């Protein structure tokens, strides 16, 4: 992607809570229309990084540029073009869904937002006038996604956007994220759901101990840091026996022996997953 397509650039970000360093030299860029997955274990520094990127925390060091604007000098302008889905369902329970959206639209200085259309996009068209206190967890989650879209953001931050959603709702939210990226919004996604990160992210950054340990396309990460396996099932003395063999130099001979033996039932190859990569980095980070 061209350099002028960069929507968000974080350069050598550092932040400490007292003596504890939470973010230690994080740098990355997200392009327009790109979805970046930010993955890592709890306490890795993801939330602190996001808070700096959305202007809630001022970095101790480093710089943030959003849509060509410097966060240090144009925070208000940047926040006007950013949407955020927080991990907490931080809505006003005694306001209706529509009133929640209308309130945030006013904070963005917008008065002609199609709130009903927005509610319809997240499947809340018929519940928009009900108070949020009567919403299920999934409905609240969908409303926080709608709220993040109220200003039609150019950069979208999503922290666990499908947490607590049923599979159908989760799928509709993922479709919505793709739509937003499709219209050109840069998306930063934080999730513990590795399948979701794999499905949505163009690139994934693994972060641990406040540092980015790897940043690449999911396929590339899986190839570089994951371990493909072969699962062989055989019938041995009347019972089904399963063996898992890693695809490497040592495993080739074992695999050849298993496949050539009598009683072979099935052979399945399994690709490495992002979860394997996550464990690889989290484990190494925790050593």
């Amino acid at each position, binding site marked *: 992607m061209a350099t002028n397509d960069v929507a968000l650039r974080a350069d050598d970000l550092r932040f400490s809570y007292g003596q504890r360093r939470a973010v230690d030299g994080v740098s990355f860029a997200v392009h327009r229309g790109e979805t970046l997955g930010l993955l890592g274990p709890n306490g890795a520094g993801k939330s602190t990084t996001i808070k700096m990127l*959305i*202007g*809630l925390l001022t970095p101790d060091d480093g710089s943030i540029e959003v849509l060509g604007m410097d966060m240090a000098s144009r925070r*208000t*302008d940047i*926040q*006007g073009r*950013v949407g*955020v889905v*927080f991990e*907490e369902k*931080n*809505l*006003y*329970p*005694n*306001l209706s869904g529509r*009133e929640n959206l209308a*309130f*945030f639209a*006013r*904070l*963005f*200085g917008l008065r002609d937002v199609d709130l009903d259309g927005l509610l319809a996009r997240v499947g809340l068209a018929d519940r928009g006038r009900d108070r949020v206190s009567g919403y299920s967890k999934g409905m609240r989650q969908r409303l926080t996604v709608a*709220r993040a879209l109220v*200003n039609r953001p150019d950069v979208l931050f999503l922290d666990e956007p499908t947490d607590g959603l049923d599979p159908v709702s989760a799928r509709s939210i993922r479709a919505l994220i793709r739509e937003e990226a499709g219209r050109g919004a840069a998306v930063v996604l934080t999730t513990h759901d590795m399948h979701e990160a794999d499905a949505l992210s163009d690139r994934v950054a693994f972060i641990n101990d406040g540092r980015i340990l790897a940043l690449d396309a999911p396929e590339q990460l899986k190839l570089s840091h994951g371990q493909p396996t072969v699962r062989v099932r055989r019938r041995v003395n009347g019972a089904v026996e399963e063996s898992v063999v890693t695809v490497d130099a040592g495993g080739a001979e074992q695999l050849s022996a298993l496949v050539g033996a009598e009683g072979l039932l099935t052979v399945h190859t399994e690709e490495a997953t992002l979860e394997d990569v996550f464990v690889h980095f989290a484990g190494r980070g925790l050593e």
Partner: protein
Amino acid sequence: MGRTLSAVTAIIGKDLRLFGRDRFYVLITVLGLGMFGGLFWLLPADVEEDIPIGIHLPGAEALFEAELGARGLDEATQEGLAVDLFASASQLEEAVALGDTLHAGLDFPEGFLEAAAAGQPTTVRVLLAGDAPHALRPALTAAVREIAATLGGDQPPVTLPDLDEMVVGTDRAGDPVSLREQMRPLLVFLVLLMEMFALASLVAVEIAQRTATAVLATPTRVGQLLAAKALLGTALAFGQGLVIAAVTGALAQAPGLVAAALLLGAVLVTGFGLLAGATGQDFVAIVFWSMLLFVPLAIPAFAVLFPGSTALWIQALPSHGFVEVLVGTTIDGEGWAQAWPNLALLAAWGVAAFAAGTAVLAGRIRRA
């Protein structure tokens, strides 16, 4: 400027809506105004100035009335005693024990008049009801000695000079302050303090539910959020203060001055409300912190109920100026000229509380 105004009005509108939809706030507000307003009118508007005492003086009622009724009893009544004569000691005892109409009694023995006239020692029983004012006992003892001396024809050993009384300040002789009037500052201030709780709760909920974080992820600044909370808190406290002041008749005299005191009082409690709300934990924590602030703030209003000079440390409390202005205008008929030092003190405390409240809350919101 336009953006700030838009953000502040949006937040105020949202908070007003939330306030109106919270049954607890609405119930407490309506109940508070109704109860305090009603309580004011239920309290006695008059003061019973005379302390009723009973006297049993066997066999000498006529003499007593002739000798003392003309002078002594009139004087006694002027000094706040209402005397009833009883035919027997048992009737007197019974009446004092009942305590309904009598606070105390003097039971003179048989032959008291003769003994007193002859200068012989005799014993007079002083009967006191359980709720009799403590200071009544020495007064009655002195009265008995004076009666005995008068009957015996003795003159006091010293000649007392004529007294030239001068009342410094408002002379309330014959116009004592009723309990209702004494309670007025307390009732008005309690309504303001109630708003302190409500604001603290609104602010704390915003922090605890992290909705403040969502607001600050938009172009809204911390200062705008605080300004909205402060304006709403002050307006609610001031509005309700005006209502309770009107209900209790505090606006009948110098309404402008009372309104100014209410506005500054509202600013003061709003500052403390923001401070209590900054704790932002749960309802119990809010109640705890609010109570810590509530008690010292209410002391000056309670002090009005106990006449006498106010201790220096009470005068130093933030709400003292507010109570003084209210007492001065509604009871003593004071105006701006007399009230301005207290108004200035109240304003200074209000600014200090406001500054502390907004500073602590801003820090709390930024850390959330």
